[in-house]
């Protein structure tokens, strides 16, 4: 049992690390601000999500695991909001109707 759990952890965390790598490479290599943003939003949330997923089985208690998930949820929410804010700032068109899809995050 514990071996299986450890394998899940290792796989998930490795995958998470990979997404961080992808995000960083995107941030460094992509040509302009908006495409970089695009790369970033995917990568960091997925990366963190997978790391959290890997850590949950190791948490030892239900409360610990829930807290980990809370961290992820918060980071996800904040990340989505901030990306939107930055995107608007970067495109320099605060009133642009195309950017006004200000509903809740997907």
């Amino acid at each position: 049992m514990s071996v299986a759990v450890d394998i899940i952890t290792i796989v998930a965390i490795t995958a998470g690390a990979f997404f961080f790598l992808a995000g960083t490479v995107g941030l460094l290599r992509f040509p302009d601000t908006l495409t970089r943003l695009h790369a970033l939003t995917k990568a960091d949330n997925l990366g963190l999500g997978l790391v959290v997923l890997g850590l949950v089985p190791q948490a030892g208690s239900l409360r610990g695991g829930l807290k980990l998930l809370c961290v992820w949820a918060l980071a996800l929410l904040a990340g989505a909001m901030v990306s939107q804010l930055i995107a608007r700032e970067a495109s320099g068109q605060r009133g642009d109707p195309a950017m006004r899809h200000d509903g809740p995050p997907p």
Partner: protein
Amino acid sequence: MTVASALEMALAAVVLGVATWTIAARETFAAVVGFVTYGLLLALIWVRLDAVDVALVEAAIGGGLGGVLLLGAAARLRVTETPTATERPSATVRVGAALLSAAVAAALATGVILLPDPAPTLAPAAAANATATGLGNPVTNVLMAFRAMDTMLEKVVLLLALVGVWSLAPDRLWGGHPGPRHRADPLGTLAFLARLLPPVGIVVGIYVFWTGKDHPGGAFQGGTILAAMWLLVMMAGIADAPQVSSRRLRIVLIAGPGIFLAVGLAGFAIGSAFLAYPVAYAKPLILGIEVAMTLTIAATLGLLLAGAPERSAGQ
């Protein structure tokens, strides 16, 4: 070299790199962004040093409120950047400053390396006296019991900083609202965030405060989170900053040190000592003080960031 110590060195190297960037960057705004990330990474160091209480403070202040304060100022002062930068001191002065700073840093490093081994510590004393308060978090014990005077004075420092900030207002705006009026954009992302995040944040803030009695956390950490939530609501234009003349606001601002002082004086009256808690009531008394302090800290920090009164009442 073990994996762990390699990790520590890597962490130290990254932190040092960001610190260098913060000093060397040409643009202030870029430097401040560097400083925000620095605060973030510093939290890692504090965890590594097994000081989670401090890590919480660093995360809340260094990565959060401090960043807001400095980024806002950097944006406002951007126009002064070029003229002031021309006052840069001569190369001789800069080399001198670098040499002397390096000398002081080297002396400090030598001092740290040559600290005696085994290190003197008050940890056993703190552990032995923990029963007096009934709290499990040794840092809270130090802050609230053994060195309560420091903590009380520190709250007065916060209040005085606020008086100082307020005193910068123009005379005719005294009593008005601090900071600029943020216009609400009801459909905006920010407004959405400001409705969604605060309930969560308030729960987290209270949790961090409450857990501080036995685990890392406490009044300052919790208060900072609450302050951030309040600030978010203000920045989104959902609620305006209160007038500085408001009596109710002022009571909240002194509640922490006030109740601290009152309990301290009560300790006097009961006959033990100023700032001493009777063992049977130590825990509820400390928690009561901490509740008031959390509120006071949240209000003070929020207003410190909001700035001096800039609009008269109703504006």
